[in-house]
């Protein structure tokens, strides 16, 4: 555990503890003590899983991203429903190989998750140099091919001023 | 709104039968896993709906959260194993 992680430890503990308080609805001293101990230990033991990245999340854009993603999910969900309910089943499944230009691992994970969440496309393989995506038809692939998703996600991160 | 909740419960139960058909028939083991995953998603939602019907959401949400996490662990373990071993 290096210095950067212990900096955020109180913050993570606080976030988990607030979640506990909201969910437990029991504010006796004993229960709150248990909750605080649990939050602290979870935050502490998971420290080693946080990799210190040179990117920083821009929170405003991150919160704006979720509704936008949901809108895309709705649109492609309607399209996929049309494909499924159409009597002739006009699907044309294909694999597309996509080379992401994202360098941060977190951004790559978010990209893969967003692709899978959007109906009509599912991430098959994700590595830093290639994403294999299975798509229902040409129209579903649009968001991946024309880099809309990717540009959105790369806008969520900003390179941190290097401290070393 | 209890009447509407009951309708939701029954529709979900009927949909589960469809997924069950996929689990029983599914040509490959992956079809079965997918079907089971769909069933557990629906069952998690069913638990929350039952919780709202009984007006004890807190307790039922606990169960469904636990089940969602266990489902993740089980599905991931299974997928990892099948990946190493190959199709049956």
């Amino acid at each position, binding site marked *: 555990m290096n210095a950067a992680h212990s900096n955020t430890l109180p913050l993570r503990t606080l976030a988990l503890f607030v979640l506990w308080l909201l969910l437990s609805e029991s504010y006796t001293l004993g229960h709150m003590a248990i909750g605080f101990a649990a939050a602290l230990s979870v935050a502490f033991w998971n420290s080693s899983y946080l990799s210190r990245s040179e990117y920083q999340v821009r929170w405003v854009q991150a919160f704006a991203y979720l509704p936008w993603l949901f809108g895309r999910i709705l649109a492609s969900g309607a399209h996929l429903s049309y494909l499924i309910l159409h009597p002739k089943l006009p699907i044309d499944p294909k694999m597309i190989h996509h080379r992401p230009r994202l360098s941060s691992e977190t951004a790559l994970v978010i990209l893969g998750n967003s692709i899978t969440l959007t109906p009509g496309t599912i991430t098959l393989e994700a590595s830093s140099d290639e994403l294999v995506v299975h798509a229902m038809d040409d129209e579903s692939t649009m968001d991946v091919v024309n880099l809309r998703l990717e540009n959105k996600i790369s806008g969520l991160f900003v390179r941190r001023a290097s401290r070393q | 709104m209890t009447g509407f909740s009951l309708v939701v419960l029954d529709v979900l139960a009927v949909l589960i039968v469809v997924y069950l058909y996929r689990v029983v028939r599914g040509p490959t083991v992956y079809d079965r896993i997918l079907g089971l995953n769909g069933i557990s998603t629906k*069952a998690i939602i069913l638990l929350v709906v039952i919780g709202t019907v009984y007006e004890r959401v807190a307790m039922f949400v606990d169960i469904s959260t636990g*089940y969602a996490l266990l489902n993740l662990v089980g599905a991931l373990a*299974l997928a990892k*194993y099948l990946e190493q071993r190959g199709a049956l």
Partner: protein
Amino acid sequence: MSYSFELPLLILLILTAGGAIVVKDLISSVLILGSYSFFLALVWAWLGAVDVAFVEAVVGAGLATVFFLLTLFRMAPEHILIQRSPPPISAVIALPLLGLLLLYAASDLPAFGDPQSPASSHISPYYLENSLRETQTPNVVTAVLMDYRALDTMLETGVIFTSGMACWLLLGRKHS
């Protein structure tokens, strides 16, 4: 309380139980048993026994499935297929008779939710009135399980512990 959701649940239970018997390989059978176990948990939840539902979902649908699968993965692939011999004649005759006998016995049970049944008129009121004062537990089912039936539950825990140890000993061995 209406019966409109119990019937679909019970039908699902029977379907999954039948499906687990019918399928050809053990992995599918285990997966279907997992969903069976989950429907059982839904039944408990619907009847208001939340703790039992929780245990059923965690142990039955989660842990048992994973343990079964871990065991299957240690087996040779050819042993995973089920070779089923036709059932013996005596079983074909005797089991439906046993079922009829059970149905006949069940017809004497008090109706579900009948306020006049012995369980509702003698035992339940006592627990409902006194359990909070005697055990300080808000959930009556938990109070019955953990306090009034504590010895029983303790021995059950012993059984579960033993089986857990057995699983660990069997599965924890190194591949040779």
